[in-house]
């Protein structure tokens, strides 16, 4: 078994190695017709840029994206600088250098990678999947009898913030940097999944398609791990299946198929304000111009946030969204599960959490308010502040850096729910409902707690579960996403996630069940 696992790791690392090398290799050659197509499509009016590219790029073969993208970004920056100097603002190109480079790069790929997509897919994704499964599936045997098997988590470098964890951290952060800020380096990755993208939406893949596909693959493979690790726990098995289903079907397949059907790209489960650009004017315009389906999406999006989400939280707690449906939650509960113990449980961290997450919610609401004001009054500024600059700031700071780079990149160091706990504005909103008007609670089983601390240690949201359990108090914290792991790891059967009557949901106690009845009444009444 150990041998199979080691071979699996080796195969996985080969796949990962090839995948990691791809941004730096490959041949690119832009031919004249393609270049003219791009100029026409992008309505490029800068003769400087066109001339520059004509001279330095077209017809030449580049080895690796670094070479090509430096030429393109230099041409673009030089041209823009001159146009600005000459006040020829109509000629200025507003496409970002990295977007321009990736656009050109995508159309000019030649050579092995671009021509052998299937083989390259196998050498990256294929090997990665096979290797990972060869490591994971033997755990049926190596983990031993079914039950909670957290043995060695704090002895291993990968799960105890050792050098492997730091490597993973570095890799994830770099990956997100490419995704958000250097999409030209993802061009070779897009070739791997072109056939899949074409079969779904009819279009070649962009870097977001790579991300979406990879997201599904990683979640599926890591869900296999969850199924094995928690095979004794039906709640975990059902929950994992749910979150996987919503990712693959709702977040990945349906939007792609909608594009094929000439409909707007839309993830029906992605609720505002997590879907922060839902009310951005480009989106509203696209929806209102898309006929019946656009209107339906518009109404659905509003009803989802205002009615469906809070009503469901009332009945089931915010878990129905955060750990059963949400894509961010889905990744956290699968890829992130090995890191759940790293969330900080201190009172200080809780303080930061409340300031940050509610701050982001306010930010999202203010930005949306400005957006809608600008949309209806057709002005670009609100009280002298440019709406678009607020939107750009939010997209960059919250949408990309917080949710992506920090949210996932920091898994191995700060745990798997950094974004969900400290940043997600939707989670903040659901949290209010869960805390003040919900039937959900984690019931503490009378006096059975032995304060061992497994629940707190493995709470991904950094809730000090034990602090409540050892006082016989139910847990009704707004941040709880209802993953159910505290209940799973409890050795004494103390915790149960359940939806029940609101009365008695919050039950402060000092003296626990099992002691003198008179004393319990005396003390607990206070």
């Amino acid at each position: 078994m150990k041998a199979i696992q080691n071979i699996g790791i080796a195969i996985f690392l080969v796949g990962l190695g090839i995948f990691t090398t791809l941004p730096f290799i490959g041949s690119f050659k832009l031919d004249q017709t393609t270049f003219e197509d791009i100029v026409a499509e992008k309505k490029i009016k800068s003769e400087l840029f066109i001339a520059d590219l004509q001279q330095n790029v077209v017809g030449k073969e580049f080895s690796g994206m670094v070479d090509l993208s430096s030429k393109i970004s230099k041409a673009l920056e030089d041209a823009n600088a001159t146009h600005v100097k000459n006040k020829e603002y109509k000629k200025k190109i507003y496409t970002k250098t990295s977007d321009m480079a990736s656009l050109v790069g995508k159309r000019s790929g030649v050579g092995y990678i671009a021509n052998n997509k299937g083989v390259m897919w196998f050498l990256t994704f294929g090997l990665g999947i096979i290797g990972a499964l060869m490591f994971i599936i033997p755990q049926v045997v190596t983990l031993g009898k079914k039950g909670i098997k957290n043995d060695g988590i704090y002895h291993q470098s990968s799960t105890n913030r050792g050098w492997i964890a730091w490597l993973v951290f570095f890799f994830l952060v770099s990956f997100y940097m490419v995704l958000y800020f250097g999409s030209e380096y993802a061009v070779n990755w897009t070739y791997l999944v072109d056939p899949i993208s074409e079969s779904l939406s009819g279009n070649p893949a962009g870097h977001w398609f790579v991300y979406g596909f990879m997201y599904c693959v990683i979640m599926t493979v890591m869900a296999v791990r969850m199924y094995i690790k928690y095979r004794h726990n039906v709640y975990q098995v059902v929950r994992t299946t749910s979150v996987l289903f919503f990712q693959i079907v709702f977040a990945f397949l349906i939007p792609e198929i909608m594009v094929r059907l000439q409909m707007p790209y839309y993830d029906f489960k992605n609720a505002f304000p997590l879907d922060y650009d839902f009310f951005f004017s480009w989106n509203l315009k696209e929806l209102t111009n898309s006929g019946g389906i656009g209107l339906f999406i518009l109404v659905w999006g509003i009803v989802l946030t205002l009615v469906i989400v809070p009503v469901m939280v009332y009945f089931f707690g915010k878990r129905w969204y955060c750990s059963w449906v949400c894509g961010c939650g889905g990744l956290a509960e699968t890829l992130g599960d090995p890191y759940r113990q790293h969330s900080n449980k201190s009172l200080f961290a809780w303080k930061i959490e409340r300031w940050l997450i509610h701050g982001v919610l306010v930010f999202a609401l203010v930005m949306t308010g400005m957006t809608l004001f600008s949309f209806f009054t057709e002005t670009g500024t609100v009280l002298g502040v440019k709406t678009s600059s607020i939107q750009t700031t939010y997209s960059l700071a919250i949408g990309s850096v917080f949710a992506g780079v920090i949210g996932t990149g920091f898994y191995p160091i700060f745990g798997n729910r950094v974004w969900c706990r400290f940043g997600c504005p939707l989670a903040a909103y659901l949290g209010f409902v869960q805390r003040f008007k919900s039937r959900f609670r984690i019931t503490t089983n009378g006096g059975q707690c032995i304060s061992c601390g497994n629940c707190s240690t493995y709470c991904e949201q950094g809730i000090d579960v034990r602090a409540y359990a050892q006082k016989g108090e139910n847990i009704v914290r707004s941040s709880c996403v209802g993953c159910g792991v505290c209940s799973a790891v409890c050795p004494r059967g103390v915790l149960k996630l359940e939806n029940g009557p609101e009365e008695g949901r919050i039950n402060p106690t000092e003296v626990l069940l099992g002691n003198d009845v008179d004393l319990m009444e005396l003390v607990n009444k206070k």
Partner: protein
Amino acid sequence: MEHIVIIGNGIAGVTAARHIRKNSDKQISIISAETDYFFSRTALMYVYMGHMKFEHTQPYENWFWKKNRINLVKGYVNEVDHENKKVNLASGASINYDKLIIATGSKPNKFGWPGQDLLGVQGLYSKQDLDQLEANAPDKETCKRAVIVGGGLIGIEMAEMLRTRKIPVTFLVRENSFWNGVLPAGESALINEHIIDHHIDLRLETNLVEIIADENGRAKAVTTDKGDTIECNVVGLTAGVSPNVDFLKGSGITLGRGVKVNRHLETNITDIYAIGDCAEQHEGIGNRRPIEAVWYTGRMMGETVAQTICGNKIEYKPGHWFNSAKFLDIEYQTYGWVFSERGMKEYEKHFHWRHAKENICVTVAYHKENNLFLGINTFGIRMRHEIFDRWLTEERDVNYVMEYLKDANFDPEFYAQYEKEIISKFNAENGTKISPKKKSWKRIFSHA
């Protein structure tokens, strides 16, 4: 201001301190030689197993004590001088008290086995024991085999711990079935099977004779009364615990096996109290033993003595017995009294159900004449403490318990439920026609 001094920072002492702080402004000091801060003793095993770090076993953050004006003193109390109302520490310092609470817990039993003090021979109770085990058995190369002596809760925990590092374990149990002084035969059999399933070399009805030393004074083997010699590097002595009260000999405080206390947890000396594992009731309360080395009772005594010290003199009156444990992968809970065949009352009758495949079973004890429900043991099923506590108070009969058993289920959502199977077996054995009632929130919360 009155100075309350507590010896011992375990669950009993810390609970007392917390409740005294809630109810008063008294000066509070806790003395411990074991650790700087309170930790959960029951969680030590998880540190060795790598589930947690030691700091995770500490239920309160380090600032908690100062903020709540609970003064922590690291030191070992050599003697209690009640005439001068002070305790003398090993460091030579002494601390004056107005009221003293002794909460010094237990120490592992040693029964005079030859070689019991050799290197590599240890119990598993304190933080120091954990550190020692980490040194004695860091991996299977250093510790090629461990022998554990004593078939109780700590013994099986120690076996589980060592197995997580793939260390071969031989488990010597005096009885002819694991823990059958407490568990009824069916349950004890289930655990025997489970122990063997975990590749632990379980040797029933086997006693330790001698631990043999190598040339460096380390244990290298044990011999048993079956005539076997078992080579090993570590010997775990887990044959129970007894009160840690040796330092009180000659202090004038009346000792039995533990510190003798009355129902108010007072010792024979005014202003000195004893709680937790080290306290010994003059007579057991109800079916309880005079000394109860259990987490929950330690906590309850702490809750109680704090009231007395804060002027609300109250008797220690533990409610219905409950307990829990985990045997490797099998969770165990008990509510009320279910005795093993050895301790069974003459009026006690058992109903036992065991799942055909899974490690799940239930034993219900009831009065054979009037059907009064006496208690329940569950393995692999979680039960709701509040419901059983209420049924015991309401003196329900066994038929009622069966009928409403679904109300008591505390397993996570979506788990398979076995009430139907359990009840149909009960019906078949007793000629009853009980059908299970659907779970009702209204009933569950009717008294909440």
